[in-house]
């Protein structure tokens, strides 16, 4: 059991890396950074870098002598990383690699591939070495004990593998992607902090710890979205500045977290425990209606963190962060925390009324089709992926909501597991394209209308991206095929026919918009393989394949995107006794082929449209047709959700704020200032008594004595 007991090393090692980088190697980096950056031959211009902390403003003389001022991100201008920065990266990667290896050993051991230690009991084990109570000793006798405790079970191991693997690959990838960024060391420290926070959620044994981790991932997400703090908004592309996007993400998450916290409090008030295992038995005595309300409130937290309708608005702007961050946090792991949390509390949801799971399933279903529809009309490369993430997270919630007690959290978690790999691949591939276009065009380009025909120029990125597209589309024998079709099939089997139709349609839409994105970026009319490989390049410059640090993670993730789906024992791994997937069932089931057919229709439609017709012509047709134009407009504006919230905040929230401000200014301040004015006014008038004439004082003095004497006389004579 020592193998399991020491798994806390996985949890704490990223925290160690974070501390060492932020206090050690980053300081080294800052101390040794050169103050003047030498000219680079590429620009043939004199370059003066003013290093100010982590951020830089670069003043360049252009070819015709004009002044150019670049921001930190706009043009890479840290020609050489300092040793401190490099060591930060290496430290972070090495520690994450060790954690990753450890978690894979745990996975293989518990899944029965190797047998170093006996398998884990179904309940999991508590990690006693790092658990402690907040209040210890005789002082706390009779008080509620709040413990910080961690535990390990198969669910945690499956999630841990996803987190550490994707973290490792993303950190490796960041070496190439971020090499010119001034905050290199800071970036790696934040990635380590994120890994720690996420693992805290994974290891959490009670709601208290999961909530701490929950807020910590929110913080790391905030820090990483706003990483390029100098970057400005681009209103013409409908893009926020990273700083604003970070704030939006943080605040939107808080909205969901209010529900989460209230839900936890209701559960605690009724059962007296935060511990998941104890809660599972304790909630059976709870009032069903209260429990259902509590679970729906807890699910609100998941809605916020996993960007479900109606709190989906923060995820697309969050794409302003560096692409590795989008891959790690806003695609593969953090946004899946909601799914993991619902899986972790699956028994509590199951103990509540069916309404609880229906809310989960329907939120997921509506989100899935909603986001998929929006993704069709987006032209921003990363934004398509953001909406696809939202949509796939919707699938996971459908999977959790409809699975029932037989399957448990298996189907939802399985989709999380496979999705993490191919979605990370999609993002990292997109990052590779953006990196390359950045070098080609010397500016940041994310618009797919400026791409096209990139496949021959960057073949590794293109082929791995195509694999990911097929995986997410549910193309047979790729990972998404197994996980997504299971969810869609289960919806039908368990009698959720409306959700079945929705998810089926969504899978067609998914296939359509993903292949559309692929063709817009990598293919086009006139390319090889019927337009899939090359075509007209609509941008400028000459893009090249990215360096090995970027392509190696792509290849590894591409392999995972195919292989991950073949873990047929996943359901019984997560929940002992659950039925497993098997080829014979999958291949003989008519529903499977129906889903595949729908996906193929989506793929074929996208293929037919975008490889045969020029993008400009498609646009012209859409703009020429009144109905299509309106539809396109609605989808492009994301069903006007952002505008609705904008109005809501601008007029309702700010309106109430103005009223409250007026109340504060006129009533509260009025009372305080009024009292002050009364006192000063009285004082100003009363001070006239002090005439400075000594005889006036004497009159007062003797008059007072006379009055007192009369008073005493009267009292003595008449009152007795």
């Amino acid at each position, binding site marked *: 059991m020592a193998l399991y007991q020491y798994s806390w090393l996985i949890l704490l090692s990223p925290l160690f890396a974070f501390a060492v980088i932020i206090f050690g190697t980053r300081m080294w980096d800052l101390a040794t950074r050169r103050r003047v950056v030498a000219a680079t031959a590429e620009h043939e211009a004199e370059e003066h870098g003013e290093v100010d902390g982590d951020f830089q403003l670069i003043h360049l003389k252009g070819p015709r002598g004009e002044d150019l001022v670049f921001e930190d991100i706009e043009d890479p201008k840290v020609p050489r990383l300092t040793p401190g920065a490099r060591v930060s990266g290496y430290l972070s990667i090495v520690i994450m690699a060790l954690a990753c290896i450890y978690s894979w050993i745990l996975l293989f051991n518990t899944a029965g591939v190797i047998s170093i230690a006996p398998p884990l009991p179904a309940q999991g084990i508590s990690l006693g070495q790092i658990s402690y109570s907040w209040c210890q000793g005789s002082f706390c006798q009779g008080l509620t004990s709040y413990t910080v405790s961690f535990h390990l079970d198969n669910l945690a191991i499956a999630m841990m593998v996803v987190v550490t693997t994707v973290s490792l690959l993303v950190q490796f990838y960041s070496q190439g992607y971020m090499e010119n960024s001034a905050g290199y060391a800071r970036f790696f420290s934040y990635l380590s902090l994120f890994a720690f926070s996420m693992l805290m959620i994974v290891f959490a044994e009670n709601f208290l710890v999961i909530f701490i981790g929950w807020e910590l991932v929110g913080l790391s997400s905030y820090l990483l979205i706003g990483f390029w703090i100098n970057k400005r908004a681009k209103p013409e592309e409908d893009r926020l500045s990273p700083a604003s996007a970070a704030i939006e993400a943080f605040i939107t998450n808080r909205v969901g977290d209010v529900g989460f916290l209230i839900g936890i409090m209701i559960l605690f008030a009724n059962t007296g425990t935060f511990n998941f295992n104890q809660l599972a038995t304790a909630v059976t005595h709870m009032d069903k209606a209260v429990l259902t309300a509590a679970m729906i409130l807890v699910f609100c937290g998941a809605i916020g963190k996993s960007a479900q309708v109606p709190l989906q608005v923060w995820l697309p702007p969050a794409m302003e962060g560096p692409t590795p961050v989008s891959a790690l946090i806003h695609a593969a792991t953090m946004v899946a925390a909601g799914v993991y949390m619902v899986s972790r509390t699956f028994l509590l949801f199951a103990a509540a009324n069916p309404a609880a799971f229906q809310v989960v399933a329907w939120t997921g279903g509506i989100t899935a089709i909603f986001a998929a529809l929006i993704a069709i009309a987006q032209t921003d490369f990363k934004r398509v992926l953001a909406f696809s993430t939202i949509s796939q997270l919707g699938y996971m919630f459908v999977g959790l909501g409809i699975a029932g007690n037989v399957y448990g959290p298996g189907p939802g978690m399985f989709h999380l597991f496979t999705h993490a790999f191919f979605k990370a691949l999609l993002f990292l591939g997109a990052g590779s394209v953006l990196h390359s276009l950045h070098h080609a065009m010397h500016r940041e380009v994310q618009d797919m209308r400026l791409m096209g025909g990139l496949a021959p120029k960057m073949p590794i990125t293109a082929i791995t991206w195509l694999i990911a597209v097929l995986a997410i589309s549910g193309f047979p024998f790729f990972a998404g095929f197994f996980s997504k079709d299971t969810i869609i099939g289960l919806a039908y089997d368990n009698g959720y026919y409306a959700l079945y139709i929705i998810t089926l349609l969504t899978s067609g839409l998914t296939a359509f918009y993903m292949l559309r994105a692929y063709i817009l970026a990598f293919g086009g009319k006139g390319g090889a393989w019927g337009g899939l490989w090359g075509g007209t390049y609509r941008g400028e410059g000459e893009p090249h394949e990215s360096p090995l640090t970027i392509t190696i993670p792509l290849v590894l993730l591409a392999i995972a995107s195919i292989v991950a789906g073949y873990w047929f024992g996943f359901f019984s791994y997560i929940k002992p006794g659950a039925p497993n997937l098997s080829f014979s069932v999958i291949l003989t089931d008519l529903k499977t082929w129906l889903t595949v057919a729908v996906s193929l229709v989506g793929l074929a439609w996208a293929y037919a449209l975008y490889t045969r017709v020029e993008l400009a012509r498609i646009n012209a047709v859409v703009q020429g047709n009144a109905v299509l134009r309106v539809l396109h407009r609605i989808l492009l504006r994301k069903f006007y959700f952002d505008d609705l919230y904008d109005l809501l905040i601008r007029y309702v929230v700010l309106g109430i704020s103005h009223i409250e401000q007026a109340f504060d200014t006129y009533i509260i301040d009025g009372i305080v200032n009024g009292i002050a004015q009364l006192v000063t006014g009285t004082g100003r008038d009363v*001070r*006239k008594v*002090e*005439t*400075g*004439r*000594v*005889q006036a004082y*004497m*009159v007062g003095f*003797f008059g007072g004595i006379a009055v007192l004497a009369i008073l005493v006389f009267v009292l003595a004579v008449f009152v007795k």
Partner: protein
Amino acid sequence: MGLTLNHFLVLGAVLFCIGLYGALSKRNAVAVLMGIEIMLNAVNVTMVGFAFYNTVKPWSTYLTGQIFAIFIITVAAAEAAVALAMIISIYRKRNTVDVDEINMMKW
């Protein structure tokens, strides 16, 4: 009919009232000071009167009023010295001893 305590008290009260009137109504600072001195002496008369007609034993209480009167005379002498010094000083500064005009210490 002889001299009783009431005679002393009435004399003290009359003297006190004269002194008070002088202190309150005179404009000259020296006159005000004289009024105050009269008031003090009115108190002395009262004290001595009480002491003389005191029938309470022992002797220590018998003499209290008279000793008090001596104290008051001493203090009055000191007070007169200080007050006259102040009046002279004020006169040198402001060339007046009118108490109505010495009103700098107001609001």
